[in-house]
């Protein structure tokens, strides 16, 4: 049967074959040896008409506890922040959506300008000099930062605070296996970096110290102290930071960070079960020629008019091949565009407001939830929009029971740290209403009775 995604009719195929000088399409496949040919049709489900497929997809989608139907208090690297309507309308314009990497800059000024705007906004938020066009996600951005620190310092160890998202730490381990970079963990017994322990682990062999703030437990780290410690040993400080928080929280660059990475999903990118996300990557100007991935720069055209191009490409795989600063090619340009439109829409005041509302609601939620007998904050640290609760019953069973009430109460931490088997990580964004928080507190009190 004819497919709506293929234009050629049988008559056109015959006409084209005549031009080519072949009797059939089969004649064009002569270089494929007979024994290499698949002798049967692909065993795939048969084609579905559009209307049937929509029905099937809706049925699949309905079996997921999405944040439209469930009240979401989950974070740990993916957050239910509000997405203003213009974003999806604008990114869906085919000129953006169906273009590729801007290899021909004259016909790609739209994409190039948005990336230049994105780089500017990320540099401003993080307090760094330069930002790249994006990496896949926060975790792979951090892995790239570890590789870059190794290349810049020619040292072989990276020291990671335990407050760095454990899922990120696993990605860093994967990327550091090839180059043989050794990873060391600094404990966080009180929920933040143990500076004394860090001082012992950060040495003349250390390429970078990595801290996350707010960290995996939601706690705010003393980034300036970490910077001092790293720099005293000649190591770089890498800070993992969620840019959506940086309307309110201090820019890591002003606290001494050399590289800032993070997950930009909160900037208007849907959660989508964990991807695609937005890997943010920013650095000090001196490091620009070691940065992984695409960079867009301003220049002029033949007539002196302002224009934009991909630049400093001699860092990249298509030129430098085995000696490139990274293997990345395709990144997540469209997610960077979402973030650019998000930050334009929210602007100077809006991003601050998102941070203020999230912080206020998170602190209100913490107060309501810890008023329940047996429930307490696991760590006595300042936090922003996320915090760890200690529960008197196993968190996994609490999650199961609250799911029946269409509440996603948080992320049980046992999987990530056995010492936190009694702990639940709770995130509260500006999206949550007082009513929802009160309902959560009420439901939790009931299941803990």
């Amino acid at each position, binding site marked *: 049967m004819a497919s709506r995604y293929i234009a050629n009719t049988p008559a056109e195929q015959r006409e084209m074959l005549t031009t080519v000088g072949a009797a059939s399409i089969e004649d064009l496949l002569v270089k494929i040896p007979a024994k290499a040919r698949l002798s049967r049709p692909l065993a795939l489900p048969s084609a579905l008409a559009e209307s049937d497929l929509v029905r099937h997809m809706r049925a699949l989608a309905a079996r997921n506890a999405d944040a439209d139907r469930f009240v979401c208090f989950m974070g740990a690297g993916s957050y239910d922040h509000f997405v203003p309507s213009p974003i999806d309308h604008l990114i869906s314009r085919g000129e953006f959506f169906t273009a590729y990497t801007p290899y021909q800059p004259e016909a*790609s000024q739209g994409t190039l300008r948005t990336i230049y705007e994105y780089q500017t906004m990320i540099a401003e938020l993080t307090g760094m000099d330069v930002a790249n066009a994006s990496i896949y996600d926060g975790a792979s951005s951090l892995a790239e930062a570890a590789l870059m620190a190794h290349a810049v310092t020619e040292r072989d160890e990276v020291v990671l605070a335990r407050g760095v998202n454990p899922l990120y730490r696993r990605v860093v381990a994967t990327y550091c296996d090839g180059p043989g970079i050794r990873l060391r963990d600094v404990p966080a017994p009180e929920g933040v970096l143990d500076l004394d322990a860090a001082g012992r682990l950060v040495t003349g062999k250390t390429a970078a110290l990595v801290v996350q703030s707010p960290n995996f437990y939601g706690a705010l780290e003393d980034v300036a102290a970490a910077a001092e410690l790293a720099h005293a040993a000649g190591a770089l400080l890498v800070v993992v930071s969620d840019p959506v928080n940086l309307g309110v929280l201090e820019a890591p660059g002003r606290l001494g960070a050399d590289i800032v990475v993070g997950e930009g999903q909160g900037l208007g990118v849907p959660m989508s079960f964990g991807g695609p996300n937005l890997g943010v990557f920013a650095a000090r100007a001196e490091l620009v020629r070691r940065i992984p991935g695409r960079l867009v720069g301003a220049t002029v055209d033949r007539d002196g008019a302002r224009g934009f191009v991909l630049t400093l490409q001699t860092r990249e795989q298509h030129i430098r091949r085995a000696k490139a600063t990274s293997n990345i090619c395709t990144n997540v340009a469209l997610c960077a565009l979402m973030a650019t439109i998000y930050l334009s829409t929210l602007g100077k005041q809006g991003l601050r407001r998102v941070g203020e509302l999230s912080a206020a609601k998170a602190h209100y939620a913490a107060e309501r939830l810890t008023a329940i007998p047996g429930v307490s904050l696991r760590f006595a640290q300042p936090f922003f929009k996320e915090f760890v609760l200690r529960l008197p019953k196993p968190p996994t069973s609490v999650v199961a029971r609250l799911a029946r009430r269409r509440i996603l109460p948080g992320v049980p931490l046992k999987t990530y740290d056995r010492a936190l088997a009694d702990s639940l990580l709770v995130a509260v964004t500006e999206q949550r209403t007082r009513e929802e928080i009160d309902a959560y507190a009420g439901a939790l009190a009931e299941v803990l009775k």
Partner: protein
Amino acid sequence: MSGAPVYDKLVFELSSPGRVGFSLPEADVPGAAVDELIPKKFLRGDAPRLPEVSEFDVVRHYSRLSRMNYGVDTHFYPLGSCTMKYNPKLNEDMARLAGFARLHPLVRDEDAQGALELMYDLGQMLAEIAGMDAVSLQPAAGAQGELAGVLMIRAYHRARGEKRTKVLIPDSAHGTNPASTALAGYDVVEVKSLPNGEVDLEALASAVAPDVAAFMITVPNTLGMFEPRIMEITEICHARGVQVYMDGANLNAILGITRPGDLGFDVCHFNLHKTFTTPHGGGGPGAGPVGVRSHLEPFLPAPVVVKDGDAYALDWKRPKSIGKLQAFWGNVGMLVRAYTYIRTMGGDGLRSVSDNAVLNANYVMKRLEADYDVSVPGPCMHECVLSARRQKRRGVTATDIAKRLLDLGFYAPSTYFPLIVEEALMIEPTETESKETLDAFCDAMIQIARETEQDPAVIHEAPVTTPVRRLDQTRAAREPNLTWSPKG
């Protein structure tokens, strides 16, 4: 020059203090100001310098910027090796269903059964398409799929107590191949191709020493040709304990015709943003699942989506896994689109995709072979590589031709790749383009060949219809200006 005034604003230049483009609710919780909740040393002193614009400013600005781009929706985009085919609108609707788009990655498996079922089934379908035994959907793009594949090969050799330090890669390969391989800790050894782009079997046989871990090759190759002795190649490698990796960038040529697994490959990756119609987005996100034969399955990135009876789960108990590649489970939004596409096409439909992709490429090559040198005689597979060496003798380079095509209403082919072809123009029309479009493109290419002889000035002047003319790349690199500041 084009007559219409060109839009030359950045969003920062639209900013007016006090203007807002957002609507957020008033605080509904009794609460203190943020500086009473959080110690001052953690707070930002001044607000970040973001634009202050209205919602309509945003909409008009980005709408106008979008018009400064060519995309597949608006222009024929014959960018070789990138498979710039039509991106179905239905895929977009499906990826935006709240059940997928609004799903948090850390919900319990029982709260994500629909998403996990889709992922499991997509993995099964990709395995069938490639003749592989197992698939990981986690890699975020082709290059990350390559890294995953090479790391699995490394783990496999390690588990067998073998120390192998080198990976062989043809000189015609994509740049990501050597870059990913080096990142995985291997020394890259470049293998020279024959003049026709095929693997030199003698050179290969002498190169596959006991310290070689893998041979990495693109099929069809980057000249758009099927490697006729591919099965001998995989046999030579296997006889010496060398794993064979297939770069799946060109999979659009062989759907239902032949399968990497049946050709003897141990690993291959898929570019869902090429063959399986997920949008390229101006440079991603893509998705780069990786398929393996059973001996490599224990090493797959964790977690793996598994099925037990009617229930689906993320299986974390993978002691031999190479680890994780991104924080969560893959670019699920892209997986939903690819799944929608495969269910739209079915097996016969996918076969027809490759048949028509091959036909379209051969048609273009035939129509252009009198005016341009072909790098290798046909028939080709899904793309053809021409050389502008004839034009270069008259002072017209591949870049010049690319720029002139922009004026004639087409995006440009890939240029200067593969590296082994002088003045390469790599053209991949894809199956979704009609004969009329191909004819119009070929007419334009033939016109440029004539202009090369008769009026090269018009080519050197090009482009003149785009928002900017040729850009000064040297200045951009020498004085990097990577962020906007009020001074400009």
